[in-house]
């Protein structure tokens, strides 16, 4: 159990130590993202061989996170394997983006907006990269009193340009940015209606808030208040979006068709906002001590 406070606004009791919770969070995310990718790639019947890459990767990456999370002090070899797997996850994400981009370019290499909007989602594979990067940072610990000096279990320390917490904030912020951009592109398919704009407006706002905090040397309690409630709103918007997408897939019939789930509104996609909201709260949760306001 870990008693933590979030920006002096909430005290919660985490079921386990924060770092372990982060690793489990990464593992669960890898798992569900992998399932989502498997469903999406099933549209092409997995005929292109490279569409198997994320499907082979995600269970291995997820298992590594779960194993490491239950090791209070992971051994050197375990840490190395985990780092290698998370690095592979980053590569899978970047490669996936390259593949998706290649897929929407017509054979002559030019781009049209129709293919950007209706083709394979270019930014979606970066979810693997972001989650894996999070998994990479999650096994590190910041040396007490020395911001930016990160200790990797069994491997020593390395000097990062910014503090560990800011790394996490940047990941959350960029996660919101990618989700917002994906939402802008995907919702362009059939025109922007008011409820589709919720995801876009909120995504842009959340991105700005988080990155502002990540960039700031100082922030006020009111900024903390805005950040906190933005993360709560992210969870709400995510669940709402899930409901909207599910409603679209039900097509007013009360029955799910697998085909509609695969090609129409992606049911799990909006939950990414909720995911980022929870992560955003977790990364700023500290063990009942004053969160330093200076970098």
């Amino acid at each position: 159990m870990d008693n933590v406070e979030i920006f002096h606004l909430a005290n919660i009791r985490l079921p386990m130590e924060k770092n372990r919770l982060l690793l489990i969070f990464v593992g669960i995310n890898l798992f569900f993202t992998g399932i989502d990718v498997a469903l999406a790639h099933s549209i092409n019947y997995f005929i292109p061989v490279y569409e198997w890459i994320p499907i082979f990767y995600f269970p291995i990456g997820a298992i590594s996170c779960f194993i490491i999370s239950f090791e209070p002090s992971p051994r050197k070899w375990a840490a190395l394997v985990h780092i290698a797997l998370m690095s592979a996850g980053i590569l899978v994400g970047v490669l996936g983006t390259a593949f998706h981009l290649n897929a929407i370019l017509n054979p002559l290499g030019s781009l049209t907006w129709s293919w950007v909007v209706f083709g394979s989602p270019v930014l979606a594979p970066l979810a693997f990269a972001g989650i894996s990067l999070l998994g990479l940072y999650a096994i590190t610990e910041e040396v007490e009193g020395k911001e930016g000096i990160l200790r990797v279990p069994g491997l020593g320390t390395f000097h990062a340009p910014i503090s560990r917490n800011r790394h996490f904030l940047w990941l959350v912020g960029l996660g919101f940015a990618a989700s917002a951009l994906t939402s802008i592109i995907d919702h362009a398919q059939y025109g922007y209606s008011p409820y589709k704009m919720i995801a876009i407006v909120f995504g842009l706002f959340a991105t700005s808030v988080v990155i502002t905090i990540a960039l700031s040397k100082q922030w006020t309690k009111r900024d903390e208040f805005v950040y906190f409630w933005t993360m709560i709103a992210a969870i709400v918007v995510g669940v709402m979006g899930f409901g909207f997408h599910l409603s679209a897939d039900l097509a007013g019939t009360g029955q799910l068709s697998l085909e509609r789930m695969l090609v129409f509104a992606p049911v799990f996609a909006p939950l990414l906002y909720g995911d980022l909201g929870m992560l955003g709260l977790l990364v700023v949760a500290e063990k009942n001590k004053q969160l330093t306001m200076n970098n």
Partner: protein
Amino acid sequence: MPSGLPKTLVIGVIVTGLFLIIIYIFTQLPSGGEPGTKQVSVNLADKCSTCHKRVSPDIVNQFARSTMARSGVKCVDCHVVDRDNPMGKDHEGFFITVSPTPKQCGKCHPAETRQFDHSRHGAPAWVALNGFADFSAEQQKFVSDNIPEANRGPNGIVTATRNSLFDIEGPTVTPLACQSCHAIGKPNADGSIGNCNKCHLRHEFSLGQVRKPEICGQCHLGPDHPQIEIYKESAHGVMYDTQGDTWNWDQKPGRLTTADMPAPTCATCHMSGFGTQGTTHDVGERLSKFLFAAVTSNRPNYVSGREAMKSICSNCHSPKFVDDLYTKADSVTAFVNLKVKEASDIINGLIKDGVITSEPFATQISYDAFDLWHYDGRTAKFGAYMQGPDFVQWHGVYPLLRQLNKVKEDAAKLRKEHGGKR
């Protein structure tokens, strides 16, 4: 920065506002072209198009407009086959088939070809002409295993209704007649069955085209199965004729809603992913009765087929409306069945008593009895389920009754000529 307001809020609002303005500006710009309207280019940069741009340029132009070309599919992907393919031949350094079969299409469209193989557009379409004569043992086994009603044997419906006219008219006529349509299920030398081209016209393979009723109307027309005529009479057909130019024909499979197509076409009801139903190339999946048969019986998938079709109807119609239609159409079918059985009993009686030969289409009365179910009976049944009242009445039941009367009168005359045997 306004005093008292947190910078995160101020920056958040400003940045969000700026991006929304940018998004709005983008939405006002021209789209830059839609898939299918912009040619990929005739310079597809492969050996095939280099020559065929001169030899058969429109094939290259058509393909260049296709979504397949934009997806990176090239000529060789469909036309080049293995050396052991009996349908292949050497051509300019490649070993190709002139006419790709479902074996080639199935490389990228396995689900579609599998569904097609299980349907009556597949093997049963050809078996109806020539039985199993053109099928290899392996193909026959596949058909028997996968299409229950296509089994050979005394109770096999397809065999039982195989049309003897095919033999009578012979190879002089049938290639341009029956075979043109029924070849949709013709066995191919490479082991596959059928021809995807019958509906997916090459080389543009347009989604919009294949959704329009005219594509089905190539074959589903005429006195023996006037589906296109019935459709055009129906309210659905009228909506298509009067408003179809505003529909979204190129909506991606699986995303169709009534917003794209306010009224159905053949494809919508029978094949498209719509409402709760996923896309299928098994055209019998949503059917419940063998309407084509002389005496209609239930299909093996009667319950699921009917429920599936009703779920399509329910996108626009109330359950009561749909159930009412089915009840009434079933009644028409039962009526037709009775009359056809009556005619069939008369003919069978004449054969049994030696008044006429059992050879099909050897006597005028056998032609009349054939017309009775093949033209009039089927027209009435199709008209009932597809809401074409004139086809139920004046092209269906009325001529059926008139024909039955003629059969009865001719049977009496024939018996009298044969010494009055009953």
